[in-house]
């Protein structure tokens, strides 16, 4: 069954993803860490689908679709930002700062 261990690994991967988002400055690396967090949540969905039925796996399917759409739009935004600022360092992108 491996329910507890799977949830533990999922929690650990999610935590590592949060560390990446909070610590790094490169927009693309932050984006990859968000993908890592989505993957961690997918793991907990799959682990719990062993108990609660196949619906969890259907949900993982939807999460993957949304993640693919998000990656396409997010990377296009990063490209547009790079074209404007010549950098993807988030510290240099502070237009909304007062």
């Amino acid at each position, binding site marked *: 069954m*491996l*329910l507890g261990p799977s949830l533990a690994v999922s929690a650990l991967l999610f935590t590592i993803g949060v560390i990446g988002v*909070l610590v790094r400055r490169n927009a693309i690396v932050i984006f990859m860490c968000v993908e890592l967090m989505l993957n961690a949540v997918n793991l907990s969905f*799959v682990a719990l689908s062993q*108990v609660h039925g196949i619906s969890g796996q259907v949900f993982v399917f939807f999460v993957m679709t949304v993640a693919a759409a998000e990656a396409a739009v997010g990377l296009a935004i990063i490209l547009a930002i790079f074209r404007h600022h010549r950098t993807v360092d988030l510290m240099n992108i502070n237009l909304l700062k007062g």
Partner: protein
Amino acid sequence: MMAEQVFWFFASVAVVSALLVVVMRNPIASAFWLVNTMLALAAIFFLLQAQFIGTIQILVYAGAVMVLFLFVIMLLNLGRGGSDLRRAPVWLLGVVLVGVLASQLMPLAGYTRERLALEYTRSPYLADPEMVFDSTLSAAQATVERGVPGDIAKPLFEQYLIPFELTSVLLLAAIVGAVVLAKRRI
């Protein structure tokens, strides 16, 4: 037990690769370690009786999405430059916050089928998981009846048909949005 050892092997591969994603300074190295994490997760999905999801994980995530990331990294010609960390107080605060988050998430490790049944029914007595959860709904049982793709296709095209059709609209919107954003002049 063999499956458990295989699980722990792939789990440690996934966690170490995920740490390297965060630690590596070069974005291309981060991307390749992320591919490694996703492949290890796919192996764990296979172990957890989710063969279809594991295959899709390799095809869509490790294949398509990560190739998109690599294309953008190479297009922007990243990979050089100094430290990539935020300023010291900010990232130290981040690590403290993550410590709190981790301490709250880690009790999940203690979950078993029995404890889940107990919390699901809110009964003071020890509940039998076989009585609480409908075993005909379990993935393993459905796979025996309908095969691996049929297992996930039945709920996808019956119970979740409308959300499934709506994702096509989402994907179309994402494609149009990506083209509009990335194009220099429309």
